[in-house]
């Protein structure tokens, strides 16, 4: 076989490579962790990746103040103890935080509404990075705008830190329902759809023709039980982010493992029933009419 100077023929940071990692996470659970110990628990429970952050969304909500990128030392501490991918969050529009995360070698950057936005008009130009980005979306237009900016994974936002799955369901149904409607539209109607969605026409046309987003579509925000995971997977999510739902519950270890098993076996209620037994209390959670800040409204 030819053994040319192969290093020259390696291309990093391509769309295929960035979207490809998201492909590998499908059918899995990505867990929020705030310490290396929690990261180990997550990996032991079968997480496909961890999201390293300083406070889980429920605490960010309770504490108030400005939520920022995590301390690099904490992120490095987590990178040292797990072998699965490590993700970390940057503020919306805060490209310098994203640059820092890329320099730290995180595997995915989440430009996240859970942190306090740094820019009220612009998201990060994600094409400028080799590290891939995930972004939240509440509707199809928002998802396509993030993809046009270079996001390689979309997660429906839900309402982080509530333990309440209602917004996750709303956002998934909105995004996937509109994708189904696009598939029924004729070519002239797609121009109007692009206008309505405030999204680039070529992306609207692509979604209409293939019937799905051009990047993997995961679900986040409010998942607290194995049945919640099975619900959003059946609605069409391709993987699940669990934030406060694990480490704000009574007994995180078995709950984390149970959510992983329910995500794999989402079409088998007998398995979801089996793993849901005796998990202790889930996080208490809050209703939508009780919360003061809607994180889902952040993003433009």
């Amino acid at each position: 076989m030819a053994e040319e100077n192969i290093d020259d023929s390696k291309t990093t940071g391509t769309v295929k490579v960035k979207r490809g990692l998201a492909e590998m996470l499908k059918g899995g659970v990505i867990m929020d962790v705030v310490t290396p110990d929690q990261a180990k628990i997550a990996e032991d429970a079968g997480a496909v990746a961890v999201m390293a952050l300083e406070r889980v969304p429920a605490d960010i909500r309770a504490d108030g103040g400005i939520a920022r990128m995590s301390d690099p030392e904490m992120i490095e501490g987590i990178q040292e103890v797990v072998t699965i991918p490590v993700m970390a969050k940057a503020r919306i529009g805060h490209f310098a935080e994203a640059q820092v995360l890329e320099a730290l070698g995180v595997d995915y950057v989440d430009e996240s509404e859970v942190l306090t936005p740094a820019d009220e008009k612009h998201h990060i130009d994600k094409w400028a990075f080799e590290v891939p980005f995930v972004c939240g979306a509440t509707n199809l237009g928002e998802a396509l705008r993030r993809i046009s900016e270079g996001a390689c994974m979309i997660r429906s936002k839900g309402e982080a830190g509530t333990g309440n799955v209602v917004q996750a369901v709303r956002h998934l149904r909105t995004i996937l329902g509109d994708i189904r409607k696009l598939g029924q539209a004729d070519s002239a109607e797609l121009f109007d759809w692009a206008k309505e969605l405030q999204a680039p026409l070529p992306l609207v046309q692509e979604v209409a023709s293939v019937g799905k987003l051009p990047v993997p579509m995961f679900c986040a925000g409010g998942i607290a039980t194995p049945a919640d995971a099975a619900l959003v997977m059946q609605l069409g999510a391709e993987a699940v982010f669990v934030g406060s739902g694990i480490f704000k519950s009574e007994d995180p270890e078995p709950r984390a493992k149970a959510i992983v098993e329910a995500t794999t076996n989402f079409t088998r209620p007998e398995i979801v029933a089996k793993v849901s037994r005796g998990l202790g209390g889930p996080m208490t959670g809050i209703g939508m009419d009780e919360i003061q800040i809607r994180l889902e409204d952040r993003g433009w």
Partner: protein
Amino acid sequence: MKVGVLALQGAYVSHVQAFVSLGVEALEVRTPEDLAKIDRLVIPGGESTTISMLLDWNGMRAPIQESISAGMPIFGTCAGMIVLAKEVLDGRDDQKPLEAIDITVRRNAFGRQVDSFESEIDVLGLDEPFPSVFIRAPIVETIGEGVKVFARVDEKIVLCGTDSILVASFHPELSNDGRIHEMFLSMEPLGSQG
């Protein structure tokens, strides 16, 4: 012929699509009952630690090992290659591979995600280079007797196999090029060779 793709976690949908586009029936395998319906099996990319645990939690480890012993052709990509290896380096201490093929595999051998890459690689038996996608990819460090090397990158083994087992560091299911899948489909079950 019916191909099964292990659907515990990972890029199983892309593999199913790759086979369907070659005109081959492919189904997702989650249970021992699913396994009984198929003639050959793919273990896809994903997180090898997660897939390894789910093999046990879903009661799939022993049935798959039996199918391998019975000579069923198996194809492992990336995490699938790690799961099929005899020995895993840089894995978790409790990571138990299936020990189906006599190779030692090193996880994340090229580095973190920012080091993931695409490359056109020469593959033994293919006339044109294969466009391959490496994502936090493992490499094969050593091979035992009876294992044949089909491709290398930086002199490291990235595609190899025996008569009935094929393993790749990269992701042919993401390339829109069915030639590696065809290589797998051309493998004969061991029993049929007497």
